[in-house]
């Protein structure tokens, strides 16, 4: 019985030590994610190619006279749906991708994730 009490006290003691050590460990700095802007103007994505980190955000702003969209190619795995003049759409980057405007299929862009 006495041995069991000692063992129990030992376990409690270890748990307390681990808890104290954990709470004293240095805080890992939070990773800062950047926000990039791609302007859609003069029927082009500007810039057409963007190098980003995982978790960064890209905002596409339509500054053209006509409606555009931003759609992944070749699989169309994601799309903005139509972005009217003056409106914007954003995406948190999880992988590199090629994209185009499915309304004006000759307009193309590229996201390169480092």
């Amino acid at each position, binding site marked *: 019985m006495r041995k069991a009490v000692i063992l129990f006290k030992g376990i409690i003691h270890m748990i307390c030590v681990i808890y104290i050590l954990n709470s004293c460990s240095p805080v890992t700095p939070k990773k800062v994610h950047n926000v990039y802007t791609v302007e859609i103007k*003069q*029927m*082009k994505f500007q810039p057409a190619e963007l190098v980003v980190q995982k978790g960064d955000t890209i905002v596409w702003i339509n500054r*053209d*006279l*006509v*409606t555009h969209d931003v759609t992944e190619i070749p699989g169309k795995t994601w799309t903005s749906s139509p972005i009217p*003049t003056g409106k914007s759409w954003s995406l948190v980057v999880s992988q590199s991708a090629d994209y185009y405007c499915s*309304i*004006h*299929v*000759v*307009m193309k862009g590229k996201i390169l994730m480092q």
Partner: protein
Amino acid sequence: MKFHMNCKALITSIIACSFMFSVPVFAQVNKLSDAEIASVAVVANQIDISYAAIAKMKSKNSDILRFAETMASDHKAVIDQAVALVKKLGVTPKDNTVSKKLASDSEKTKKLLRSKSGAAFDKAYIDNEVAYHKAVISTVESLLIPQASNKELKDLLQNVVPTLKTHLEHAIMVQNKISK
């Protein structure tokens, strides 16, 4: 001999194409006022919307239908911008020789398009879109922009040019695809 035959065939094709579509050419016109330029801009956009409407009724080709949908939507957006601008400037679009010629030529083209069906229609429609956009780009760049007096009207016309050039590039892409 074969070369001579090919040349003859080529020349015949070029002449045939030049008569097939009524592509506007405005080498010599009197200076247009801003009201007249606004009218030309609106009429030119309306014409391509009317071609798109015919395509949406007659074609079953997905590339043609998608292109026609884009033409209808983009040219409507340009008309909306032009109408908003003339309203702001207090200008009333005024008919003139250029807008009248555009409208009368388009009637001939619409008649031709309506007379065709299937693959022949698709070819005729997209060939006309290539020719029409080339002609309109040339008219906007060499006639309308230089003659526009108001800065906002000139800016609007300049902003429309990249849209027209993208349409031309898109039309050529569809033309190449359906001719294979």
